[in-house]
């Protein structure tokens, strides 16, 4: 799959099975079990949410579940930390606007 490191001088990547999921209703592929954020970035998607007041694009910052910069809407739930949440088949992922639709 494009977007993933395949050859590396030191590391060998063991990945789960390929699954389909949806970003803004568009079908894309990713590896099951990797964080949703990894799948999105491999697919070239870097804007994860839109800020509350000034509508500014937001991306991840820490990638280890510490900063809350990566909150998105997943399967209708707001504020899912996508740098930690593992990808599963059929997930529906959306950019979150501000604090999200569903509170």
């Amino acid at each position, binding site marked *: 799959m494009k977007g993933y490191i395949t050859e590396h001088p*030191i*590391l060998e990547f063991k990945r789960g099975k390929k699954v389909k999921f949806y970003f803004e209703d568009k079908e894309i592929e990713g590896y099951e079990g990797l964080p949703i954020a990894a799948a999105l970035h*491999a697919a070239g998607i870097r804007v994860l949410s839109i800020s509350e007041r000034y509508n500014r694009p*937001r991306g991840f910052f820490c*990638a*280890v579940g*510490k900063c809350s910069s990566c909150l998105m809407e997943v399967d209708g*739930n707001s504020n899912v930390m996508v740098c*930690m949440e593992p990808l599963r088949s059929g997930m529906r992922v959306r950019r979150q606007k501000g604090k999200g639709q569903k509170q």
Partner: protein
Amino acid sequence: MNSSTKNQDPRSQKNIQNFSSSKFPNFDICIIGGGPAGLEAGIVAKELDANVIIIDDNPVLGGQLIKQTHKFFGSKAHYCGVRGIDIAKILTDMVDELKIDVLNNATVVGYYDDDTLGVLKEDKLFPIKAKIYIFAAGASENMLVFENSDLPGVYGAGAVQTMMNVYGVVPGKRALVIGSGNIGLIVPYQLLQAGVEVAAIIEILDKIGGYYVHAAKIKRAGVPIYLRHTIIQAKGKDCVEAAVITQVGDKFENLKGTEKTIECDMILIAIGLSPLCELLYQAGCRIDYVPELGGNVPYHNENMMTSKSHIFVCGDLACIEEASTAMLEGKIAGAKAYETLYKENKKSNEIIVQANKELSNIRSSPFEQRILSGKEKMR
């Protein structure tokens, strides 16, 4: 973290009482964080025969080590020449062998008045209680403020290292690195290994912050290091497309007319870490501001005991240093926690004496003077 708890504050004491604690017996020692510090603490305490649990929010143990593909420095006793990822494997195997209880994918979200922890795992919040807590949660990366620093593409250097070395995904094609400490020198080298371009490393001081070997390696690879430079702006519509850097004067003021635009789609911030001591604030531990140790740090004595006699700390959470010292502090915390609960014995005593000896060896290097004076200040 999932969201079925989103309407209530999952951290409220009322909420936590709704969960039964029967499945989770009381422990002697509970360790928060499964990095090198927490793992060593757990291994030592278990070897001394205490009843231990380690809680970590990742699917695998090892903390920062799981993304360190480079070989470590130091003495043989401290895994010199061994890659971080392999040290993580050695420690994890020991934890398995000793049959230490481990709670993975579990985040400690609160410390309550009755000395209970609130733990969130797969949407469930439950309490865990232990006689002694050892906090080894590590640190988080510092942010830097400049124009458009909120644009996607401005990432923590460690964050990109995680994406790249743990998940095998590189979130960009060309990087600019801010800061020339060890992280700022090592991550760009690993980016090159993953086939990503590195435009430059910039450093506001007039000398490189990290070890000479790391700097020499990255320079040999053709990456320029600009000293006395800082970033003033990120450019781009939805994501970073370029960065504007400038030279600084003696008072770190921006020197007009020296601005340069560097094309890049990632700006990696590697300007330092801050200890994760929120839970210790909640626990009522004394927190001191000691810049040498990384900012706000939990007060601790030479036994790694905080201002509360049942709470210990070790590793980056106690002071921003390195894996070798984190492991030694972990050993001391583990053994001292055991001694606090039971009694000092020959074995626990030996562990502490040996760890202290090795610590003072490492800290006698000129690089470590800062740490020593910081620890001195706190006492």
